[in-house]
Each structure stands twice: as C-alpha cells, then as structure tokens.
C-alpha cells in the first residue's frame, strides 16, 4: 500500500520515519475517569506505535467489555477497532489474525475481562501463541460495573467497604508462564519509561505477548488497603530486568556496565537489550521466571519488566502451516477448486 501521506501539521512537531507526528496516533477523547490508569496505557501505546513508525491503519485493535476495553477508542484513530463481548476477545482476535496475518494486533482487556469471565479464552490464546500484543489493564476490580472485586484482586486486599478478599487471586503472569506463553511482561501504568519499550518489544515479538499492567482504578480501587492503588503499587513495584528496545539497524543509546547486558534478536532483526541487576534471573528460562515472580510476591513486591521471552517459538500461523498470503486477499483462483475437480469428487461418491 502506498497511501501514507503526511497530514497537515504544525511545522515544529516532530515526525517519525513515515512522516507522522505523535498526534496522528491518537484516538478519540477519553470518557474514562480523570486519572484512570487506563488512559496512561493508551498514551503508552500511542507513543510506542509512533516510535516504531507503524502505519496506524495496519493495526487492528480488539477488546472485550469494561472501562479497559473501551480504551481502543482512545488510541490509533486510523486503525480498525472491535469492541467484542465480555471476556471473549481472544477468540475474535484469533479469527481476525488467522484471516490476515499481516496486521499488528492489539488486544486490550481488563482483569475482569481476562481473569474472571475470560479465563478460558485467555488460557487458550496463550496456548496457540497467537501473534498479538495482549495488554491487561489490571486494576483488581470491575471498573465499569462499579468496583466489584475481580479474580486478580489479591488475597487480603480490601474492597472500598473494607472487606478483605478471601479468594486466592489469579496471577495472569504466572498462569501465562505456566501455559507456555512466549513473551510475558508486567508493568505499571504510572511508569511510561518502562511501559513504552515493553510495548514496542511486544509488537515486534512474533507470537503472543502479554503485558499485564497494574492500572489503578481511581474511582473504585484506589483506597488504602487496596493492593492495586497508585500508592501501594508505586511503593511495591520493582523492575527485575531493565529492558531497551533497539529497532533494526539503529544505534544503541543507553549505556550499562559491561557484562550485565544481554542482547536478544527478534525475528525482524530488531533487538532487545536486557540489563540485569545483581539479584537477577534468566528471562529466557521459564522456570527461573516463574520462581522469580513468586519470590517477589513472597517478599510483598511486584516484579515488573520483561519477565520471560522465547523469541523463536512457532506462532499460530506457523503451527498451522498457513500460506504467506493473507486469507482475506485470496480470490476465486486461490479458493475455488473448480468444476472439473468437483466432477472427480462426484465420481468418488459413485
């Protein structure tokens, strides 16, 4: 396609390599509550797509139902979007991806949408290693239905009325690791520094990339006693492995102690640079990642950053051995075996 053309813009605004300003990646004005974590994540997605020079229209945005699931309206106006039904976005995203492997797929979901009603579909999209970015805007509650606890609410975390949650929570990062996810990250909506490179790496990862983002609900779950409030999260997040995303053929900016940095090359040549702190673990080792997540939890901390990465596992199209040509571009030639062939088939039924 060659329809990209710079729009009229303020001459001073910086543009990316395809000539677009960051504003070209924005969406409609948010109708979420002022201060909602979800809006920061939308901003992070805007930034990441802009920095990666993605043509906005080559992105498809899908979501379920919830405040979080409204977010796709608030970024990438030029991308098609699909607000599906509650908890079942993964299947719709799977169908969409199978139909056209050439777009970038963003799935945005909430903790209720993914861990409560959506647990089954979440597990299965992980298993299929569907090539998509899957962002969970995790506030430990159901924002849109006014603050009931969700399945990610921590045991003991207090509701607005003060009642502690008795149930064992679902940690989507842990479950995804357990189920064989190939890119697993956790972040905090308040940490754009960390979030943007994670989103970029997730986009470039060939396969299912989960980013579970703690994204406080200012209206229903930001009180003392909640483990998903801004304050609690700020006080308890800790980055395990600092990550830089380095686009293909671009020079490396950040400098770290020699020997502490590891480079992982993604399928398109771009790279991820991992900078490990002393207490570190190996993010290419699933079991080590599982242990680290648990260890932090046991210490009352939230491990953020890129937690696990397998850059080579086969994604869904590879598993299914489908053609390079997107299905939605196939015409009668590719699709219809024709009359003669049908006659032969008729004979086989005689």
């Amino acid at each position, binding site marked *: 396609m060659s329809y990209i053309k710079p729009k009229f813009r303020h001459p001073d605004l910086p543009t990316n390599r395809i000539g677009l300003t960051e504003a070209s990646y924005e969406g409609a004005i948010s109708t979420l509550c002022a201060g909602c974590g979800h809006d920061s994540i939308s901003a992070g997605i805007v930034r990441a797509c802009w920095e990666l020079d993605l043509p906005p229209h080559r992105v498809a945005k899908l979501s379920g139902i919830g405040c979080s699931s409204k977010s796709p309206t608030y970024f990438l*106006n030029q991308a098609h*979007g699909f*607000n599906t*039904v509650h908890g079942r976005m993964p299947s719709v995203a799977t169908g969409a*991806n199978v139909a056209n492997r050439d777009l970038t797929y963003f799935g945005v979901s909430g903790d209720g949408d993914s861990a409560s009603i959506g647990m089954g579909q979440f597990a299965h999209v992980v298993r299929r290693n569907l090539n998509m970015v899957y962002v969970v805007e995790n506030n430990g509650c159901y924002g849109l239905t006014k603050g009931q606890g969700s399945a990610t609410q921590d045991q003991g975390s207090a509701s607005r009325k003060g009642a502690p949650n008795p149930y064992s929570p679902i940690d989507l990062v842990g479950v995804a690791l357990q189920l064989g996810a190939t890119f697993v990250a956790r972040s905090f909506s308040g940490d754009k520094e960390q979030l943007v490179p994670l989103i970029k790496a997730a986009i470039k990862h060939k396969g299912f990339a989960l980013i579970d983002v703690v994204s406080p609900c200012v209206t229903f779950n930001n009180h003392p006693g909640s483990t998903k409030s801004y304050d609690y999260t700020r006080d308890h997040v800790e980055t395990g492995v600092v990550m830089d995303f380095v686009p293909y053929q671009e020079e490396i900016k950040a400098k770290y102690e020699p020997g502490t940095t590891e480079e992982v090359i993604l399928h398109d040549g771009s790279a991820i640079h991992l900078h490990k702190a002393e207490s570190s673990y190996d993010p290419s080792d699933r079991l080590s990642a599982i242990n680290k997540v648990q260890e932090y939890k046991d210490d009352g901390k939230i491990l953020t950053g890129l937690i696990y990465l397998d850059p080579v596992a086969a994604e869904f199209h590879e598993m*299914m051995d489908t053609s390079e040509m997107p299905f939605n571009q*196939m015409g009668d030639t590719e699709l219809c075996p024709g*009359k003669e062939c049908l006659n032969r088939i008729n004979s086989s039924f005689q």
Partner: protein
Amino acid sequence: MTEIKKGMPKNVSGLNDFVVKFANVNGSGSSSANHMFAKSIFRMGIPVSARNIFPSNIQGLPTWYEVRINEKGHVGRRGDTCDLMCSVNPESMPRDVKEVSPGGYFLYDNTKPLDLRLIRDDINYIGIPLTQITNTEYKDPRQRQLFKNVIYVGAIAALIEIEFEVLVSLVSDQFKGKEKLIQPNIHALELGYNYAKDNFECPLGIRLERRDLIKDMIFVDGNTACGLGAVYGGATVCAWYPITPSTSVAEAFEKYAARLRIDPASGKKNYASIQAEDELSAMGMVIGSNWNGARAFTATSGPGVSLMNEFLGLAYFAEVPAVLIDVQRAGPSTGMPTKTQQSDVLLSAYASHGDTKHILLFPSDPKDCFDQTVAAFDIAERVQTPVIMLTDLDLGMNDWISEPLEWDEDYSYDRGKIMTAEELEAGKDFGRYLDVDGDGMTYRTYPGTHPDRGAFFTRGTSRDEYAIYTENGDIYVENMERLTKKFRSALEYTPKPVITERGTDKSYGVIHFGTTRAALDEAMDHVSEKGYEVDDLRLQSFPFHDSVLDFIESHDYVMVIEQNRDGQMRTLLVNELEVNPKKLLPILHYNGTPINATFIAENILGVVGADKVQPIHKDSA
C-alpha cells in the same frame, strides 16, 4: 416358526422395494461391511438409502443400520418395520425380532440355537453359523469379529441377488493402497455367499434386479457435502468444537481442503481448520475472521448453538457475516445426542437477547447441503449477518442418493458491499452504517485498507451511521428499523421455496422442510393414490418469501410437518406471516428417529379424510 431351508415359503416379496436392517454392536467394525452392502445396491443402479442408528457411546452397545431400497426413488424411512433383519447382536434380538414385518426374514447366527422366546410364527428364520465359520477360518479374534460382518454381507448378497462382481469392485475400491486386504475380504464374502447358496433357496421373495435409475447420481452424506460446500464456497477458516452429529462437517472440510487448497508454490495451506476450546470460542473466531474479510464458518449442534447465543447477537447487531451449520439432534439439553430432530428452529431464528432475527437455510439432501453452504457465504457477506443452516443428524451422518454436485464456472463469490482503498482515495463518503442504496445493507471496509480513511469501530453497542457510539434513542430506532429492512431485503439472495402442485383442489396443502422431504414424497404418492390432491411447499429458507404466504392463503388448510414437539416452524410461519394459526395444522414427529412415510401418510390422510379438521399431535394450549 418357519426355519427357511430349500423350499421355504416366500412370504414378503418385493423386487427392488424392501427394507433390510442390520443389528450390530458398536465398535465391532460392522459399519464398513454394512456400507458396502448399501453401496452395492447403489452400484446396481437402484435407489437406496442407509441410516445408522447408533447409541451415544463408543463400544459395546446395540447399533443398527437400516437400508431402504426403492426403485421408485423413495429413500426416506418407510416406517418402523423391515423385511429382512440381519441380527448379529444377541442383546438386541428381542427388539429386533419384533421389527420384522409379517412374512419377513430374520437372519441370525445359529452357531448356538435361538432362544425360543424369539420365535414368531409369521416370519422366516435364516440361520447362518457365523461364529462357527469365523472360528474355523480365522485365528485372530479381531479378524473373527471383522470378517463375520463381511460374511453376512456375502450371504445376503446371495439371498437377495446382489451382483457379486459389484461387491468385488467395491472391495477393491475400499482397499486401494492396501491391496493385501482385498483377497481376504473377497474370500469372506464368498464364504457367506456360498453358504447361503448351498443352504437356502435363493433368492428370497425380496430381491434385487439391476436397473439404470441412478444415472450420474451420487451416494454421500450431508456433512461431507457441507464440508465440500465450504471449500467451494471459499471458506478459509473453519473454527469448530467436536460435537455429534456435526463433527464430520469440519472433518470433511479439512479432508478436502488438505487436497484442494494447498498453495502450489509453497506447499502451505490456503485454509485453517481450528479446533477451538469450546463453541463460544469457535463462534468468536468465525466473527473475527469474517470481520477481517475472510470467509469463516463453524459447525455444531444444539448445545453449541445455545452457547453461541451471545455472539450471534453481536454478529447480528454489529453486522458481521458468519456462517453456522447446525446439525440438529434430539434436544433439549444433551437430549438424545445420536438421534435426529428439527428442534432448533425457534432458537436459531431469534437467537440472542434483544430483538434479533437470523437468516436460516434448510437443506433437504446432500446437493442442497453443498449448494446452500456455498450460498450461505454469499448471503452472509451480502447481508452482513449470521446465516444459520439447519441440517440434521439424519441428513448429516447418513448416506443419501443425490443429484451430483454442480459448479458453474461463471459464478464468482459475492463478497457483498466492500469499500476499497481506491474508492476511499477517490473521496467516496464512507459511513459504515449509512444506507446509501436503500436496501438496509451498508458498506464495510476491511481493516488495514487505507491510511486515513475508512477506519471504524465495530461494537455491540448502539452507534450512528458513521459507527460512532451513541445512546440517542432516535438513532437507535432508525438503526433497528434498518436492520428489519435489511432482513427483508435478504429475500433477494435466499433460496426460494419449492412448490409441488398436484391438482386443482385447494382444500389442503402441506408445508415441510429439510429431511422430511424424502419421506414426504413417498407419503404424497400414497395420498394421491387415495384420490386426494394435496399440494406441498418445501421451505428452503427464512425469512419467508411471499410465495409462502400465497401458498397458505390459496389453501383452506395447510399442514405443517416437522420433527419437533412444539411445532416450531409453524410458530415461525404464524408469527412472521401473520396468518391465522387455525389454518395451520401441525403434524409432529419427534421421537428421535427420522420421520417416515407411513407416519406422514397416515396423518395427512387423517386430516384430509376426516369430516372435521382436528389438529393432530399438538397439545392445545
């Protein structure tokens, strides 16, 4: 009791017109032998149909295979009796013996003597020492079991005069690639054939004679035809979850796509068959693919349709094409999962909460299955809505004779209203839900089409003509009315009813659909023979064409024949056509067996022959 030997009485008689039934144990490998039996009749040029009656389990329970032979071409079920029962399952013998029509034949394994309680004096007994023969001939227990089936087929071949060469050629076809197995199978056939020839006076009163009635017809099950239809219809994605009796639709799609849809250059697949984790997910995938411009479908049965309810409402309201093949089985709930019914009609027509209506298709034979599956994709994309094909277990899992499948080389897929990048670039106004043509059908764009035009948000919530979210009541109502209009406009694309007129008397008509067709045709012959002129109309789709209302209006009374308890199609007719329910007389058959000609004929005659018309089999409310 009349043990038939040479010189036995020939009680029932029928040339190319009788019913043979096999009583087996499931998992015992009888199905390929039984299938060979039915196919041999087909190859002798004689119309035949075959029905598997099997339990919901894998091994060890009774199963039956009922073969109807009728040179007039009636291949629906005749009734509940058979003329020759080949009963090799001791467990079901008490039931089996009862089903033999008076003067008919009961073939059994007489290695052990027959239980005296199984003896009727109005039928003939044909004892063949199957176990003894196999024990003598084979060592391996599995072989003994498998060849026992082939042996009885051989014996029956002699008894009813199947041409032995036809069986030989079928064996050769079947074991193409495994030639070593051909000779042993032929040998087994011969064992049976010779035993019968030696011990009984062949043929029986029921027998076959080669005809040329089959011409270029084919013998195939409906699910295979649906799967093939999906390949020909341009489906690239099949997302499904296993459930009896629909599983073989997906299997057929896979089988033919694997042969016919491989990219020649790369050897890769131009299709994907995805086994989803459940039916909700399968329908989600279908919606996702269709949204993104690929033809996708799913196949399921009642429980799956129930689970897809929420997604069907999304597809209806967000206007995303979707093709769903519902191979109906006996409900409600898990019901009788291996029995047939037509009881998902209402559910499918109005699936999901809120005001919804869905396009339905009703195939009646394998050719319909093929044609309507192809058409379903065109309709779904043209109307941008779910299309639900209601087939059933009887059609889907049994072999039927059918006209050959046809393909028009000039036909190409109707992808519906798509606005392209070029049109957008040229400045065409794009409103996703803007009814520019006045038929209620609006333009869509595929995701990724154009850098700054044509993107829109698809959602299950209310929105305006430009796909912008709104809670404005007037806009909501306009949109809902457009959907109603669109549904009516669909009539231009859906298959029309098939009307058969039988005379000038317009007192009575019959409306039916789907697999009732075959038994109905036969029943109508009976009715005509009795001197009544009754027209019939076979529905092929919903919404109903005007001709359906015309048909109802032009007859005093119309019987609606269907295979469910509540007269669901009748409800749909009354509701959608605003006809007086008193005009529509329900005839209902829903015990899980395919409806049969005797039942239909009796019921129609009961109506047309009665002084005062009374609804039959319908509880008055």
